[in-house]
């Protein structure tokens, strides 16, 4: 398990780094900057995980083998020699996993890059490629981490006393005391953090983010340190609940160990939050982009022109193409230069909504109702997040109050400006000051095959016509989102793995401490089924408590995100949480089985 995690992390690290050196990826110039920065971030995160993981697991191994070390010490081998032997063993394992990991990393590199290219919709050929730079970088970084781990292990052993070594597992533990104040404070702190997060508008986004993160982390630590003890203690006092079968065993064990474990609980809860939130974010963006496609590209072809000749020519080309015209939308609008914005009549807006058959169009229309000195404001197509709440706009020197902010399809990205909808009377007044233009939008069947059509139209239309087609839309934004999504998903996987490993090691070290307890239980006549049931409950509680907290945290985080995007992100949230639970569940099964093996094996 340790070796597996190490090998996996080496292979992953190599792959992340190698993106940066891959010649084919570097060729695509406009992309390379994104690729470089995301590869940097991803590899940095991997290093952090690695440091954490190695420290954690080396501690675990040390604790497990303290008795063995103690026996050596007893036989008169001095601490320095023992420390050297054990630390070298760790180093050897590290070097082995480095070698295997590099080998596997190189082997799967092509597959990884192909997946990346596929996710990014890049049309490129990926050759098998071994990057010397990436290998050197991986080896250097890992050597440093391993060396630090080696030194730490070495000094750890030197500092230990013989008596501690002999008695590690026997140490009598005491029942933890409860700090009620901290317990209640933790709930309040988390509540405040949520409040700040939800009302980010009031505090400023950057501030809100910083404070929320800090408060949530403190709150989570205290929550597991105190509040959880309070809850578990409550269950232990409720004999009606406790005295049902194996509850008595599982709950007592959890309560007893909570002092040792609450840091792990909290760390895991924070990790889970990070995991779900980041995956939720990238999948939300992807989901959003898919949804947004409707707003950005409501028509197959759009252009701006009121020139009858041009319009006729376009219609001619469309007629001769193998597409069928499903809708032709013509609409007048005013164009404001400072700031760039378009102005549309309310009646035109209503007509477009019903022509495009927009979801909830009746609701939107009735929400706007009649406008007087007010406007309804439609976001610029392609806006992912809006951090500003606007109250007023100035159009042509007149100030208008904003009655509603909307995200609806209107002209699409062919007219990439925000749009103010005014009443028909106001429109006529503004018309005197601003230039009026005509928008033409056409919906065709088979919007995917518009490449040739786009080139033909581009020949006859002047640049100010702002030709925009389905084909053009597909070529710009989506590849970038693809990369972000892929790396996000990959990091998600890495983090799930990290979280799982941390819990796994923690629970495994528990199992050695609990072995004695389960032996007593067996002598008292606990059946194997009951024993398994008790372990399942205990390990299950261990897994579920941070999961619940993590999920609640991330739901709050994603709901803020959805507020920022002005989009309901329920579907991607549910998807990312369920994926997480599935992977996490597999870890649970695995850990549970191992625990049972440890507890059932003869001493």
């Amino acid at each position: 398990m340790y070796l597996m995690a190490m090998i996996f992390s080496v292979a992953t690290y190599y792959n992340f780094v190698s993106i940066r050196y891959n010649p084919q990826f570097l060729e695509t110039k406009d992309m390379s900057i994104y690729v470089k920065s995301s590869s940097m971030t991803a590899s940095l995160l991997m290093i952090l995980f690695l440091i954490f993981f190695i420290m954690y697991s080396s501690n675990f191994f040390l604790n497990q083998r303290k008795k063995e070390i103690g026996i050596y010490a007893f036989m008169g081998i001095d601490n320095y020699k023992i420390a050297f032997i054990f630390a070298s063993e760790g180093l050897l394992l590290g070097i082995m996993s480095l070698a295997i990991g590099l080998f596997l990393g190189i082997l799967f590199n092509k597959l990884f890059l192909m997946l990346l290219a596929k996710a990014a919709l890049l049309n490129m050929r990926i050759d098998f490629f071994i990057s010397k730079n990436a290998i050197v970088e991986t080896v250097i970084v890992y050597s440093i981490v391993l060396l630090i781990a080696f030194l730490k292990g070495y000094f750890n052993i030197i500092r230990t006393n013989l008596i501690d070594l002999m008695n590690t597992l026997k140490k009598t533990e005491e029942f933890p005391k409860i700090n009620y104040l901290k317990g209640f404070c933790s709930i309040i702190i988390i509540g405040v953090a949520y409040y700040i997060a939800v009302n980010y508008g009031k505090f400023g986004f950057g501030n809100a983010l910083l404070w929320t993160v800090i408060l949530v982390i403190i709150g989570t630590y205290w929550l597991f340190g105190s509040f959880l003890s309070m809850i578990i203690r409550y269950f232990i006092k409720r004999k009606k609940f406790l005295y049902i079968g194996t509850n008595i065993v599982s709950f007592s064990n959890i309560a007893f160990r909570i002092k040792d474990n609450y840091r792990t609980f909290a760390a895991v809860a924070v990790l889970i939050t990070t995991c779900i939130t980041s995956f939720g974010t990238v999948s939300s963006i992807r989901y959003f982009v898919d949804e947004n496609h409707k707003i950005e590209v409501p028509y197959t072809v759009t252009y701006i022109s009121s020139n009858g000749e041009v319009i006729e020519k376009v219609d001619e080309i469309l007629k001769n193409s193998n597409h069928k015209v499903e809708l032709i939308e013509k609409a007048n609008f005013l164009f404001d230069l400072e700031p760039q914005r378009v102005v549309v009549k309310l009646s035109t807006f209503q007509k477009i909504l019903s022509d495009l058959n927009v979801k909830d169009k009746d609701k939107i229309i009735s929400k706007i109702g009649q406008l007087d000195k007010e406007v309804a404001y439609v976001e610029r197509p392609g806006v992912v997040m809006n951090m500003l709440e606007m109250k007023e706009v100035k159009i042509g020197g007149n100030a208008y109050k904003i009655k509603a902010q909307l995200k609806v399809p209107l002209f699409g990205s062919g007219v990439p400006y925000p749009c103010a909808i005014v009443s028909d009377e106001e429109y006529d007044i503004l018309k005197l000051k601003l230039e009026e233009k005509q928008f033409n939008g056409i919906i065709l069947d088979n919007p995917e095959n518009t490449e040739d059509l786009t080139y033909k139209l581009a020949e006859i239309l002047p640049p100010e016509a702002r030709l925009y087609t389905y084909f053009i839309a597909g070529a710009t934004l989506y590849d970038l989102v693809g990369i972000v999504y892929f790396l996000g998903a990959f990091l998600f996987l890495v983090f799930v793995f990290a979280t799982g490993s941390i819990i796994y090691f923690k629970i495994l070290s528990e199992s050695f401490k609990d072995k004695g307890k389960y032996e007593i239980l067996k002598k008292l006549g606990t059946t194997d089924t009951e024993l398994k049931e008790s372990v399942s409950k205990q390990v299950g509680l261990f897994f579920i408590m941070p999961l619940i907290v993590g999920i609640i945290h991330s739901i709050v985080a994603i709901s803020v995100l959805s507020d920022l995007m002005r989009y309901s992100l329920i579907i991607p949230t549910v998807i990312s949480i369920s994926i997480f639970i599935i992977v996490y569940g597999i870890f649970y099964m695995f850990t549970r089985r191992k625990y049972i093996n440890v507890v059932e094996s003869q001493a």
Partner: protein
Amino acid sequence: MELVLETRKLVKEYGSRGMVFTALDGIDLKVYKGEFLGIMGPSGAGKTTLLNVLSTIDKPTSGDILYEGKSILNMKNKELSIFRRNNIGFLFQDFNLLDSMSVEDNIALPLALSKVNVKEIKEKVSKFSEFFGLKNHLKKYPYQLSGGQKQRVAAARAIITSPSIVFADEPTGSLDSKSSQELLQCLLRMNEELNTTIIMVTHDPFAASYCKRILYLKDGKIHARLDKDSTRKEFFKRIIDFVGSMGGGVSELL
């Protein structure tokens, strides 16, 4: 008198062919209800093996064990565990309390595992904690108790299921002499007032003198048998004389 436990030609061998060590060599034993039986013998005589086999923790190589006339040897693992939980109580030298549970929960454990009604559990816990003088310690945890108190908690846990037999394996082994005496008094009261059948393995002639009957085990066989017929003090003297006569001297066996 009602027969609780009976063994027929019980044999237990360890090791594989060629290297067989016979720990129990054809033990025939009858234990009646309300007995307080002591098992003595030098190290390696098979005392603990006998106890383990009788208490279903270990299986004999051959022979039969009958509880209230029923053989337990063809029970399956799960049945055996449940049988053990409901019919046998244990006292160990090192107490074997669960240090993660309060005294109250430790005593209640066997009943809780059997999913007995909570009200009934509470009643029994309070009854037995009173019996063993633990009323004021119910909310404490084992690490807060003295050795004698811990062993009394273990005793309460052993008889809360009203077992047909309580096995005690050197229960005074890690107690000082005063706590030992207190505990033995408790066991005696258990035996006399609650009519509990007790089988106790011990090295200690003083502890053995509380029993009503003593079996002396040597080389896997029942070597001798002593019955209490007078006061405890005289019985104690007889045990010491007997152990002395077995050779090796009293001091070695004490």
